[in-house]
């Protein structure tokens, strides 16, 4: 039995590598991933499809083994103390893990019994979780008759029966409608705040990570590209984005010249009739920008100021927009990158 050096870390990951060997090619899924998760916090592991998120989760849950590197969960080494790790974790994989021909109660009771709870304690815990997740009315119906959102909640509830220390949620809301997703978000938020659970959440929804996670780790091509709190990452972009839509796109060249001479306007780009730039303080920068354009007689269709989004963060550190990364990962499943840069910028 081994313990981590820092007892506050519920998960430590260092230099994990993993290569899958298919018939005629090798797929480098992980290329030196490392991060830690503090106890009682939610970590969002973020990245496009094929970035290596699920591989990390499979190694941490002992389902798979890394080629090299070390990882501990709840103080136990995933390679040497797999038995202890499995007792300490709950795991909700991307695929449904309940028995569709069992009722909600039967699924939950079986989970409890597998972790050594008595039949009576399992039943009590099952009723408690059904109540908590708003599933009590459906508890005695076969799970295959439930809606997708209810089934996903059952998956989460089953992973909580034995009161784990660390919960792994692998893309928990993929495929859910917006209402069910918001519903599940509320439950996940409560897990960390009320129960003191450590949660590792993978997602390819930036919005989801922003909403739920205290810390983010963005991975791409099997490496960590950046990590930090959502706020710090966004602040790291230094400044707000402003966008100016000109009423007449032929004015764009003149407008670029005018804004280029204004102080504090950076990263000025032009896209047909729309100008985009970054400024320190959007609210303060807007009046001089509008005044300068007005003085030159240019008419404006719209002006917007926006705080940096996680999409901007992704664009900044992964070097491409999130959607584009998802597409390229989908079209090139081997997941190898154009270059091997992995600047780890902790904010």
């Amino acid at each position, binding site marked *: 039995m081994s313990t981590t050096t820092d007892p506050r870390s519920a998960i430590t990951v260092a230099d994990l590598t993993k290569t899958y060997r298919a018939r005629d090619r090798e797929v480098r899924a992980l290329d030196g991933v490392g991060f830690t998760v503090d106890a009682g916090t939610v970590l969002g592991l973020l990245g496009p499809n094929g970035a290596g998120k699920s591989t990390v989760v499979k190694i941490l849950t002992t*389902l798979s083994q890394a080629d090299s590197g070390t990882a501990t969960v709840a103080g136990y080494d995933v390679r040497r103390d797999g038995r202890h790790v499995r007792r300490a974790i709950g795991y909700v994989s*991307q695929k449904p893990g*309940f028995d569709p021909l069992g009722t909600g109660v039967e699924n939950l009771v079986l989970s409890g019994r*597998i972790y050594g709870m008595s039949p009576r304690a399992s039943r009590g815990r099952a009723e408690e979780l059904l109540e908590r997740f708003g599933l009590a009315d459906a508890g005695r119906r076969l799970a295959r008759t439930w809606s997708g959102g209810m089934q996903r909640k059952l998956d989460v509830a089953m992973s909580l029966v034995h009161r784990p220390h660390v919960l792994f949620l692998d893309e928990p809301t993929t495929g859910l409608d917006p209402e069910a997703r918001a519903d599940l978000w509320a439950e996940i938020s409560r897990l960390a705040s009320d129960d003191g659970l450590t949660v590792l959440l993978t997602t390819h929804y930036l919005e989801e990570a922003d909403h739920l996670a205290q810390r983010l780790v963005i991975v791409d091509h099997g490496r960590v590209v950046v990590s930090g709190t959502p706020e710090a990452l966004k602040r790291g972009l230094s400044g707000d984005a402003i966008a100016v839509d000109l009423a007449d796109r032929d004015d764009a060249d003149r407008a670029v010249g005018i804004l280029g001479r204004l102080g504090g306007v950076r990263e000025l780009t032009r896209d047909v009739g729309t100008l985009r730039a970054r400024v320190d303080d959007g609210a303060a920068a807007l009046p001089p920008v509008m005044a300068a354009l007005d003085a030159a007689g240019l008419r404006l269709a719209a002006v917007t100021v926006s705080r940096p989004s996680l999409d901007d963060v992704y664009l900044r550190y992964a070097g491409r927009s999130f959607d584009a990364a998802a597409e390229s990962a989908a079209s090139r499943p081997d997941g190898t990158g154009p270059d091997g840069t992995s600047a780890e910028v902790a904010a």
Partner: protein
Amino acid sequence: MSTSLVHTRLLTERSLRTLARQPAYLAFTLVQPLVWLLLFGQLFRNVVELPGFGSDNYLTYLTPGVVVMTAMFSAGWAGTGFIVAMDRGVMDRDLTSPVSRAALMAGSLTSQSATVVVQTLIVMVVGVVAGARFDGGPLGWIVVVAAAVLLGCVFAALSNAVALLVRQQEALIGISQFLVLPLTFLSSVMLAPSLMPEWVADVSRFNPVDWAAVASREALSAAPDWSVVGGRLGLLLVLAVGMACLATRAFGSYRRSV
């Protein structure tokens, strides 16, 4: 150890619950053997009149053989449970829980054995109703059930191993097509060894299907030779345990694939 037994029981209950809620599946696996029993029983009725067959009622001879075939055929599909569990997230959930691989295998084999017991009793009763006559008494029936269960475990373990290695339902078709039928015809299930070509009779001595059929028929006869029964059951037991151990190792292949 006791934890593993508890897990085996819980997983067996889960499988049997699934089966109980799909009773059509059990009925479906019985259609084929009952057709064999009644069709072949009629078709080859006069085969017993050949000199040297050694029995005067073909249904009495054939019924234990059909029991053995039924056990093999239904056990050959046991891996379907693992494939469904892998396609869904159930296998991943089980493997990240305290459940051991041995318990997962044992749970599958135990629930398959329960199915085989039910099927065996149904085929035997239909055989008796159709005219088979068994002199062996209750002990003979118990041996028939034991032989069918052990042979079922051999094939269920094989099916589970193929499921874990190949992870495709289609691969299981190979077991019934390329293994079960040839092994049946290379055994004394349908025809007494004295009437077989010599090479088939030789091969059948190494055929687990033949072990089960011989033990069953012997135990059901008026004066069983218990050394024959015990020897064949012993061989089946060793083979079943060996296959179960090998199949449990196949979890490693699945783990490398995830």
